[in-house]
């Protein structure tokens, strides 16, 4: 068999491309990932709840406020917030990686009470509590300007009110600010209202999300705010990173020692896995937290597993006496469905966690799904491409390079 130089050149170029991309852009990509509160620390605000007239600050009110704050933090796109109720009337919020602290304060502390008022703007006809939960959407008004549509729980009540004030204005306020004062042309039967008010698309989206998150049951006064260190501490983070590197080196040595040439391919696919997952985290704006790292490790495990399943199958076929190219073909074909089923089952579990989970469960699920998809692409597709190139080059002729002893090979 002649050695095909062309395939070797392609293989080498692929290896160089992977290593060069990972080495040159890897550090930059890693730096662009936002770290969570547990890894990098963040900033914390301590609020005091202020009772309005006729209101009492109870445990339930505080809990409701904390829940509303937690939904608002989702609007900010921060994961892993830490919210705790302290003492009689205080709520402490800790946020990670917030670049614009003033903006965060604004979104958090704003009561966000939406009111529909009588023409003179004095009497409140309907308010945020009448809104259907999750019914606010960013939309466009008839003049094609960005606007927010809301849905009322009680369409009947809204129709009555719009009938009563037909031909007149019904001003819409957010807290004490008038957003718009539409004139009611005719009674509105479907319980839907459009709020326009010189919004940009971004502002309209934010308002819709804020309305969906719900207004705060109480007024919050900021007592103090300051930066906090990570729960892990810089020292521990460094130690964990180092430990991770050692762990990966051990995996590399083990794979090459046990699987020889295919093991080397596995190592290259694992490097691609690590790089691509970081890239995906960076592009998807995933905030990396300890649970995210756990998911990353699980992804490494599944990528290693996919490689091992494929190579074991190839070795098995070789022991039955098949030639190397045909063992590669049938081995990778037969292992494909196994890996596919195992990965899909885990993805289903992760998707459910994402759908029903909150904050860190959700963060874990996103990282896990990313990890599985990337591990499938690298450990199955890339691994197969590289193995095929190597085998087709006719460079790999001895079973020993697959870690198969000649004595183990049976007659076909």
């Amino acid at each position: 068999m002649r050695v095909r130089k062309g395939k070797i050149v392609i293989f080498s170029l692929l290896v160089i491309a992977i290593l060069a991309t990972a080495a040159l852009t890897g550090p930059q990509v890693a730096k662009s990932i936002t770290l969570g509160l547990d890894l990098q620390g963040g900033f914390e605000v301590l609020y005091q709840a202020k009772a309005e007239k006729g209101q009492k600050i109870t445990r339930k009110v505080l809990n409701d406020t904390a829940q509303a704050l937690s939904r608002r933090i989702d609007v900010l796109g921060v994961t892993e917030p830490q919210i705790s109720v302290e003492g009689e009337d205080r709520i402490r919020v800790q946020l990670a990686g917030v670049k614009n602290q003033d903006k965060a304060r604004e979104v958090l502390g704003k009561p966000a009470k939406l009111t529909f008022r009588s023409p003179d703007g004095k009497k409140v006809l309907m308010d945020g509590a009448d809104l259907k939960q999750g019914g606010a959407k960013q939309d466009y008004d008839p003049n094609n300007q960005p606007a927010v549509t809301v849905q009322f729980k009680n369409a009947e009540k809204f129709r009555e009110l719009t009938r009563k004030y037909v031909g007149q204005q019904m001003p819409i306020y957010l807290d004490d600010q008038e957003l718009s004062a539409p004139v009611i042309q005719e009674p509105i039967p479907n319980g839907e209202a459009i709020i326009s008010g010189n919004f940009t698309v971004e502002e309209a989206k934010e308002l819709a999300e804020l309305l969906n998150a719900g207004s705060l049951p109480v007024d919050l006064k900021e007592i103090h705010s300051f930066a906090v260190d990570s729960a892990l501490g810089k020292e521990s983070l460094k130690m964990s990173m180092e430990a991770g590197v050692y762990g990966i080196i051990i995996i590399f040595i083990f794979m090459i020692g046990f699987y020889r040439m295919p093991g080397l391919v596995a190592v290259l696919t694992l490097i691609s896995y690590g790089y691509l997952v970081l890239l995906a985290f960076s592009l998807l704006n995933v905030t990396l937290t300890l649970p995210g790292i756990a998911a990353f490790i699980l992804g490494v495990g599944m990528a290693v597993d996919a490689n091992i399943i494929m190579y074991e199958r190839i070795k098995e076929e070789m022991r039955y006496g098949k030639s190397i190219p045909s063992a590669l073909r049938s081995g990778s074909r037969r292992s494909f469905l196994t890996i596919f089923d195992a990965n899909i089952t885990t993805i289903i579990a992760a998707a459910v966690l994402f759908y029903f989970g909150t904050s860190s469960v959700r963060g874990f699920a996103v990282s896990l799904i990313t990890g599985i998809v990337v591990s499938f692409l690298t450990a199955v597709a890339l691994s197969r491409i590289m193995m095929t190139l190597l085998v087709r080059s006719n460079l790999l002729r001895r079973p020993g390079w697959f870690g198969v002893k000649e004595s183990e090979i049976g007659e076909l």
Partner: protein
Amino acid sequence: MNFNLDFVGRRKLFLMISAVLLGLGFLSLLFQGLNLGVDFVSGTRVDIKINKPYDLEEAKDQLEELGYQSPDARKAGPKNEYLLFRTSQVLSPDKVNEIEKKFETVYGDNVAVNEQKVDPIIGRELARNALISVLIASVGIILYVTLRFEYRFALSAVLALIHDALFVIGMFSLFQWEVDLVFIAAVLTIVGYSVNDTIVIFDRIRENLDFNKPKTWEELKKTVNDSLHQTLVRSLNTSLTVVFAALTLFLLGGESIRYFALALLLGLAAGTYSSIFVASQIWVSWKWNSIQKAKLKAQTAE
């Protein structure tokens, strides 16, 4: 490779081992519960203003000397002049004074201490939410595996998953290791690994089942044993690599993620064990039962 281990023949022993370990964990959960960290229980937060640069480890040592084991303490403030310390105990004023005195003797008179009772509602919500999500995820797994394989495989896989999660939770209760928010992530990771590991073995059993069509107990036993042998090198190698990774984290990762790494380590070991010794064994017993019932039906029909 030439192994000749009769996994199926000793299945009762393996299931007994699992039952004993789970039972121990269950009893411990019942009688002493979990050692919940500050993320889940009310406690006290102490803000210590030190007013000059200080070493975090050194400050933690002061707290340890007062009897707070591996304290959850962090630096904070615009100039890092604060030490935030959280404990799951509710501190009496005497205890707070004690802390203030201790820090004054070490860091001078400028130390100011401020304490607050803390109730972490979000932590508890999260734990509840995680539990519910895992239960719903199990239903999803059962549906998919039933569709692709059969319901016996599906339920056995989910039983193994629950086995692994309960094993780790039980051990954490038994040894009273502290459970915090990250522990939830560790358990979720274990659940993911457990499913992945089990499905690969089941896939091989299914393949051999289609090929051999076993009719007798001996044949069924051989099919399952062969499948376990054929996937054994893979099972060992995969678990070795992930256990290596978790072990390095456990040994070198530092104090704060030690319990996280420990949970992963236990869970990954349990995940590998349960795929071979629990999931496959439950399946083979159940399958044989069904085959016999089908035979009996066929006989009575004649």
